[in-house]
């Protein structure tokens, strides 16, 4: 069983997100990078499925050359092949991204055969567009369900568990299929020693692809208004307990 997972390199901000002076991107001067937790879980799910059913996991990213770092991290936790679709700007719009990803996948499948599963995150951590996976799946003529909190394969059928306000829903998609995964589906493993070595050695395939510019255009980023806060320090250490319970009573918690 062969599984492809699409991951996106994004900055990992800490206490606050700063924006560059032109308002076009997150100021990454002092930041590390990561992928969305949803995508980390998608990689883990793919690795677990392959451990169970055989096959291999490929990871793909569309991003700057530095996005190799995120591909190598995925390899250190069990993926074996990595594909970089290089772009020279920071971000492409969702339509363009999906077009390029679908084109590259079609090329990869022409030589390797179809992937049984293509996994995406439910949404990317930075742009939160909720659409690249769905657009790519349609271009590849494959069914897709988002929000997966459970995913298994039974007789070439992807069984997807998803949570709604009403309860737990089950979807079944004949493979080849696509799935959008959410954090909580599993607990991603840490890289192993062997994985770390493999990640250093893995050859990263470069596939160029173009895509037409889509209709959603960024004007500028801005920070939401910050809530002014004047923190009231209730005390230091256990002596503060009385002031805390006063506060709880005042707020009517014990009604």
């Amino acid at each position: 069983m062969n599984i492809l997972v699409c991951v996106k390199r994004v900055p990992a901000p800490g206490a606050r997100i700063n924006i560059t002076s032109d308002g076009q991107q997150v100021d990454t001067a002092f930041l590390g990078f990561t992928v969305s937790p949803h995508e980390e879980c998608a990689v883990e799910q793919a690795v677990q499925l392959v451990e169970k059913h055989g096959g291999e996991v490929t990871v793909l990213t569309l991003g700057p050359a530095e996005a190799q770092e995120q591909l190598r991290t995925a390899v250190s936790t069990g993926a074996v092949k990595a594909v970089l679709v290089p772009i020279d700007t920071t971000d492409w719009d969702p339509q363009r991204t999906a077009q390029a990803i679908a084109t590259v996948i079609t090329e990869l499948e022409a030589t390797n055969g179809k992937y049984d599963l293509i996994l995406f995150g439910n949404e990317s951590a930075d742009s939160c567009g909720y659409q690249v996976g769905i657009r790519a799946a349609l271009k590849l003529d494959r069914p897709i369900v988002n929000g997966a909190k459970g995913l298994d394969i039974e007789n070439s059928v992807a069984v997807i568990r998803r949570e709604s306000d009403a309860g737990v829903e089950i979807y079944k998609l004949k493979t080849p299929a696509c799935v959008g995964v959410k954090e909580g589906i599993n607990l991603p493993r840490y890289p192993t020693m062997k994985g770390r070595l493999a990640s250093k050695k893995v050859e990263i395939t470069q596939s160029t692809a173009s895509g037409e510019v889509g209709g959603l255009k960024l004007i500028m980023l801005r920070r939401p208004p910050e809530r002014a806060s004047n923190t009231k320090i209730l005390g230091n250490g256990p002596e503060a307990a009385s002031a805390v319970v006063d506060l709880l009573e005042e707020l009517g918690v014990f009604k």
Partner: protein
Amino acid sequence: MTVLAVVEHDRGIITTASFGVLTAARNLAKQMGAKFEALTIGANADALSEVISKYGASTIHQAHHQALIDFGPEAWGESIAQVVRKTSPQVVISSGTERGHEIIAQAAARLDLPAAMNCLEFDKDFNGTQPLKVVRARWGGSLMEESQIDAPIKLVTLANHIVEPQEELSTAPATVLAIDVDLDDSVTQSFVQDRVERVAGVTLATSPVVVSGGRGVGSAEAFAPLEELAGLLNGVVGCSRAVTNNGWRNHTDQVGQTGTRIAPDIYIACGISGAIQHWVGAMASKNILAINIDAQANIVTKAGYAVIGDLHVVVPAISAEIRRRRNL
């Protein structure tokens, strides 16, 4: 000109997010001098026409097909696409929920149109003919994006809780138009096959009190005093991603961008630094009390109240004080 609201419902029960969507669609239509129409998907939603009418829709399209007896992202997306092709609205708007995003993305992909999710504001000067400027939430709400949708038909979802639902004061009953959509096997596969209903009860999302722990708690076992305090306050326990990543608690307890958004009366954050991705999940809390050894921690500077100290001592002291005062 038309603004079309796609009404999210679950087996015929309208979701609360839909009321905000209907209100926003009506406001936008008024601003544009356009008609406000609504779309329900599946015959089990036909009965919603009455409540939708109260929000002032002039026409309600009811998409019918036997495959629409329950939710299916592709069948719903394709139904929207077919109604949009037929009615050519200027704006299509649905809810900023898991299902709302999914069906708008599905429709957008099928129509090959752009889509902007989680919109917080629409351009006040939009008249239906120019590109639509929107402000939308990125980074789970930690950052805002001003962008422009350049397409004849604008597809959007409205961020949840942004627009206060408001019925129209005087309304005429809407015209109801049933439309049989054409769905084939390619879209009816992704469909709810089975469902286990949720048991009723307080959840992390709805509890008025949340006692939450972060990396500072140190282990799964060390959550016991937090459980105890939550119990005394009739609340539930939450946590940060550092905690779920360490396997100390289940992901269902996680507060934040990729966890649950909460809005309790009081959020007690113990040993949590307040990273932006955690903060967006907790910032809607009416009151926040941070318990942290570090007076400079982000959560301490942002919270309304703080105790500086070791949570392993402070939390049991609070429980003891509650017991003492309440004779427990």
